[in-house]
């Protein structure tokens, strides 16, 4: 049986920062286009969950998760464990962070390809106000499930790597912006590495020219220059959301898989402190197993926010908050006790009368039976607004908070914050779906839970 990519999906957040808005706010040239930005309640973990949930839409339960990012929500704690919990994968299995440089993307993909598993590439790109990193970055995530099977949509034909130590880009832990050396120095360092790794990978795959070529690098000029040399037969239509760091190769590979025909080759080049080139070939299965939400569809549209809003969301503008107490940090033991509820939105269903309870209850609301309960996983269920309110008093980084009482298909009700929406988007009866978010951070602890967003 062949081994390769079984399914994939991308996640691009809803919000955009237009270059023109950024430029006018800072009194400099802006230019056309925009970048994708994570909402105030998103981070690389939550975006990774969104991409992974979509990639596992067929109900697959990978035995290993490999999570790559340059912007981990935690150090000294495995972020992939929270993703693992949110995916409701039980306690068995492996979950690993590959955090640091954009090259981690290749690490996650290779690890998943080698032994089967889910590679999750997620990134949130920041830079100093006015910097090219701020302007040209983009926030996004992508996930690729690897394994054996008749439904493999793309196989790895060959790969090659080159590594070099040179000071092009760096960042110390805790800083929000990277340092960069003079651009031409990096260009000179990268181009030979890219040529070397690419030619060896193509040779290993036994092809001279790939149908599709992706060159992803934090050194944007090196990527552009190399792409002019490594031309594919089919022009790439990369989403214009900005360079997405460790997620960039993932978003662009997903975008190619959205459009590639059967039996086409893809050269994926990632140049970060070296170069890793991978050649893949699509199979017949690609035509019938593409992602449900194409990259292009997610990249288009989006809601633009003001630059001040962006700065506030990234913690770069310390705004006056509502005169309300900041929430307390979520406590460890109760969070652990309710892992499947808090992280996977699993409630209970009464074995006697069928009443669904979220959060899980031991004593049935419907019939009073005690401890006659089964699991009720509601994260994927459709919901509707039973009633809602716009809360202008509650603590929020992005007031006003919208609270919706959500009734779930098949039973269950919970009051959730509405994400990615303004008051005008919500009404009684509005269809909602759940989305994993970081509600707030208190005492250094991120409070992950679910919100609801309009479908």
């Amino acid at each position, binding site marked *: 049986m062949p081994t390769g990519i079984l399914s994939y999906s991308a996640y691009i957040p809803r919000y955009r920062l237009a270059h023109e808005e950024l430029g006018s706010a800072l009194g400099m040239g802006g230019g056309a286009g925009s970048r994708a930005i994570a909402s105030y309640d998103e981070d690389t973990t939550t975006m990774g969950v969104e991409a992974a949930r979509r990639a596992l839409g067929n109900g697959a339960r990978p035995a290993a998760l490999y999570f790559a990012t340059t912007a981990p929500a935690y150090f000294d704690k495995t972020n992939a464990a929270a993703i693992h919990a949110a995916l409701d994968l039980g306690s068995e299995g492996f979950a690993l962070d590959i955090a640091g440089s954009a090259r981690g993307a290749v690490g996650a993909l290779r690890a998943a390809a080698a032994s089967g598993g889910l590679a999750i590439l997620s990134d949130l790109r920041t830079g100093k106000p006015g910097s090219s990193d701020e302007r040209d970055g983009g926030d996004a995530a992508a996930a690729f499930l690897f394994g054996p099977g008749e439904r493999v949509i793309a196989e790895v034909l060959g790969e090659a790597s080159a590594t070099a130590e040179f000071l092009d880009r760096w960042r110390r832990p805790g800083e929000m912006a990277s340092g960069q050396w003079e651009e031409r120095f990096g260009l000179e360092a990268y181009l030979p590495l890219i040529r070397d790794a690419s030619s060896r990978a193509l040779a290993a795959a036994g092809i001279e020219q790939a149908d599709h070529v992706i060159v992803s690098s934090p050194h944007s000029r090196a990527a552009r220059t190399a792409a002019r040399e490594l031309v594919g037969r089919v022009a790439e239509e990369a989403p214009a959301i900005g360079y997405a760091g460790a997620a960039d190769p993932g978003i662009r590979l997903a975008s190619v898989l959205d459009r590639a025909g059967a039996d086409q080759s893809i050269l994926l080049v990632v140049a970060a402190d070296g170069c890793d080139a991978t050649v893949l070939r699509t199979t017949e299965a690609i035509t019938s197993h593409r992602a449900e939400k194409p990259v292009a569809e997610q990249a288009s549209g989006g809601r633009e926010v003001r630059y001040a809003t962006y700065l506030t969301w990234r913690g770069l503008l310390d705004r006056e908050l509502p005169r309300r107490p900041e929430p307390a940090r979520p406590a460890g033991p109760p969070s652990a006790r309710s892992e499947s509820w808090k992280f996977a939105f699993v409630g209970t269903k009464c074995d006697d009368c069928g009443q669904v309870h979220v*959060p899980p209850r031991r004593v049935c609301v419907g019939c009073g039976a005690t401890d006659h309960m089964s699991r009720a996983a509601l994260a994927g269920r459709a919901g509707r607004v039973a009633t809602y309110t716009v809360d202008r*008093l*509650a603590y929020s980084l992005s007031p006003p908070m919208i609270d919706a009482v959500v009734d779930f298909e098949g039973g*269950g009700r*919970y009051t959730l914050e509405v994400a990615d929406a303004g008051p005008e988007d919500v009404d009684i009866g509005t269809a909602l779906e759940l989305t994993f978010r970081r509600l707030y951070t208190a005492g250094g602890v991120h409070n992950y839970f679910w919100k609801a967003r309009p479908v």
Partner: protein
Amino acid sequence: MASHGIRDRVAIVGMGCTKFGEHWGRSIDDLLIDAVGECLDSVEDIERHDVDAYWLGTMGSGTSGMTLSRPLQIENKPVTRVENYCATGSDAFRNACYAVASGAYDVVMAVGGEKLKDSGYSGLVVPPASNDGTASEASAPAVFSLLAPAYANKYGVSEADLKEVMSRIAWKNHRNGALNERAQFRAEVSMEKIAAAPLVAGSLGIFDCSGVSDGAAAALIVRSEDALRYTDRPTYVKALAFAAGTAQGPTDPAYDFTSFGEVVASAKDAYRQAGLEDPPTELSMAEVHDCFTPTELVLMEDLGFSQRGEGWKDVMDGRFDLDGELPVNPDGGLKSFGHPIGASGLRMLFECWLQFRGEAGARQLEAPTLGLTHNLGGQPGACVSFVSIVGAERGVAGA
């Protein structure tokens, strides 16, 4: 098993209540000392060491009975601290009454007090227990604002009409409070100003929300047969009912946000204990938990004062005005008198006490004989509810 009640077995013979408001210069100790002092001063020949036991209601201004015994220097008496959300003061009173009815004590005092304005925050702040961070962070006005669209939708009232109903409730309570020198807000406010106020949550504007305040109140309770030894005009306790809900509303799709089942249950129990058959005509007045204006509207129906879906019309017809058929919140209610949590339930009883004694000044009702107090804590679909019936005379059921 039954709720037997203690009808006419105990009576209030003295009361005290501070002015409610922003007491920047006074601590919870000061407020408790003042309320207890006024309560004792209202009865001849009694001092604080003559009181056999105390119940102190406070939601968050202190823990343990020593919150009261320390400032007042009450030595080695039983002092119980009670907490039951916004119904805290009522529950302190309820348990104090039972202690007298049981024969355990001759003279007890229920005290309620709250110091909310030291927090520095807007609105009510209830520090939660350590938790997993999954509970809704919605504010109190937000959860109560859910009543308005649900009510409007169920009974075919337009949003604009419902906003007018809400404004009229606020207008009425401000008007009553303007006549009350102890109230936090003492100015009448026009319907137009109420309706145009900045929004806090949903359709609730600033004037649809009760006052956040500091204050304290106290009641001295004895056996009814002893009452006339302390005062010539005691207030007799006819019924004390309490219901804690299953808190299923926010998680049960069957709940529709137009009623408080806990209020219906506690009212039914109270009416039965007091022997009332037609409460809206038998009652002379009611003090109800108008934390937000839609709450008072829904309560009119839950307490049986209005038919289902008709409460809004009764409000607009002025039925609950000071000069209406059944005056509701003649003292201004939480809206205008203010809402220092632990004190509120006792403040409601204080208005009945004044009205029965003919001491309510400019807002005095004509010969009231029977009053209801209603106090709830929590949120729609998940609350605790208290209902009492008190009367000016012993052994007389209705008016």
